[in-house]
């Protein structure tokens, strides 16, 4: 594929998954409303909110870094997504994955937060640095179990390439990391709860304590940019997790692996890719539902409780997963 074709394909996959992120946020807000006995906002509410924020007529500036914060954040979200192969064996959704991409992706997950920390700091609002320090502290804590579980997979498959790790999990549920190394997956799922910042780990944007943390001063188009990033970043993290731990989604196998090889060869390419996307959507939806389920069931940790929690049991489970990978 030419470089222009690659860029076009990446833009297409970003478009698909950014819209998926919006609809996911909308539908999860609706599910949360049902838990509280409400009807809830329309599923398309995130689109209207972004339209409204971008249609604001005035904006206030606090300096250069204030502008760059959301830009870094969006770059972090896009960067995370663009180096993950979204659908296996599909050039359209391969993005810019390469051998060793998992290191870059883990860096990009952190990068956006750091950029945002600088931008929020310049806004000068006291709640911003409080939220930032809480966020970075919790982030360093949940990185421990996450990195341990990723290392376990890298050791098991002897590769730092996401594509290779997904490829090794094809051919049935028995090959998924969920089955081959359940301890690493448990540690990673607990880290994911922290990463998605729902209850009980919602210490950064804690609405009743530090309304509303780092983005307190962000408004108008800059807030719209942060909302766009939230959708693509969420989608990217979910796709990464499904790729690493739940067998990913393949354009040539995927939901069709139960069928015989002769049927697989008869499936046209577009149908295979579509089924791959559908597989990915189903798996990511179920994965995200875990965080919502936990989120509506538990109250919020304090920051120190959250950090101690991550550094104790999940880290030990992650270490055990590392040993399991070496067995």
């Amino acid at each position, binding site marked *: 594929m030419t470089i222009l074709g690659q860029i076009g394909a990446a833009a297409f996959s970003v478009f698909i998954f950014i819209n998926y992120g919006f609809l996911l946020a909308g539908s999860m807000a609706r599910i949360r*409303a049902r838990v509280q006995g*409400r*009807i809830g906002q*329309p599923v398309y509410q995130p689109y209207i909110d972004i339209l409204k*924020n*971008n*249609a604001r*007529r005035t904006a206030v500036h606090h300096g250069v870094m204030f502008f760059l914060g959301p830009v870094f954040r969006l770059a972090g979200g896009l960067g995370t997504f663009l180096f993950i192969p979204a659908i296996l064996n599909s050039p359209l959704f391969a993005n810019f994955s390469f051998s060793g991409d998992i290191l870059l992706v883990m860096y990009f997950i952190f990068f956006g937060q750091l950029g945002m920390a600088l931008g929020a700091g310049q806004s000068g609002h006291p709640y911003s640095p409080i939220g930032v320090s809480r966020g970075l502290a919790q982030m360093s804590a949940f990185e421990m179990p996450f990195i341990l579980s990723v290392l376990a997979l890298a050791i098991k498959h002897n590769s730092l390439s996401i594509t290779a790790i997904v490829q090794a999990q094809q051919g049935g549920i028995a090959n998924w990391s969920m089955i081959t190394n359940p301890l690493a997956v448990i540690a990673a799922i607990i880290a994911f709860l922290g990463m998605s910042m729902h209850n009980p780990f919602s210490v950064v944007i804690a609405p009743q304590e530090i309304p*509303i943390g780092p983005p*307190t001063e962000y408004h108008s188009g800059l807030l719209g940019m942060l909302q766009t990033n939230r959708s693509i970043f969420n989608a990217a993290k979910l796709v990464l997790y499904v790729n690493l731990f739940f067998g990913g989604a393949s354009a040539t196998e995927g939901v069709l692996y139960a069928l015989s090889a002769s049927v697989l060869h008869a499936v046209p390419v577009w149908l295979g890719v579509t089924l791959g996307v559908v597989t990915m959507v189903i798996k990511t939806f179920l994965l995200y539902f875990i965080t919502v389920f936990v989120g509506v069931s538990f109250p919020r940790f304090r920051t120190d409780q959250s950090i101690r929690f991550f550094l104790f049991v999940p880290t030990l489970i992650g270490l055990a997963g590392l040993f399991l990978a070496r067995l």
Partner: protein
Amino acid sequence: MKTKTDKPVLPNLDLPASDKGYFCDARPEVVEPVKGIWENFLNWGRANSLWILGFGTGCGAIELRPLMTSRYDMYRFGVQPRPTPRQSGLFIIGGYASVKTLKRIVRSYEQMQGPKFVLGLGSCTVNGGMYWDSYNTINRLDQYIPVDVYIAGCMPRPEALLAGIKALKQRILDGEAEGANDYARNFDWYKANQKKIITDWNMPDYNW
């Protein structure tokens, strides 16, 4: 989106000279709406995504809480609370506004980014209500900030508040809710009225 420029300049006479450097001295600017289908589309977005500033200014704020619960569920209409004035577009003045609160109301209102809407809840915002001869409350809210919709009653029930929000949505859709521009156009009049009431004015003339 339009970013404010530094001209023309406000005097900020009530600030001590040492503090003047910390504050802005720009006036609010009128940003004319772009007419036509595009503005109608944007107004549809604004009407269906109203973020309320979470600042309960009087006893009427108690009527805002039930709106979030399962009985009234304002989220159905795209309305949700927001804790910071920068991100909110709808300011609900809950009942009487004492002089002390008026100062905060003005500060919060000016920090909100246009287009912004104000909903006066309860009779006290219309004519002072039962506080009309009180020594420390204002009587007519629209002398101090532009008001889009009034909801009479003492207290109006949450249903009345929902009806008021619906009326505000219709105003936004019709392109009539231009309170932020009215405020910028009649800035000197509003400011004179505010300063008549607020005697300890130790803040800049325009808090954006």
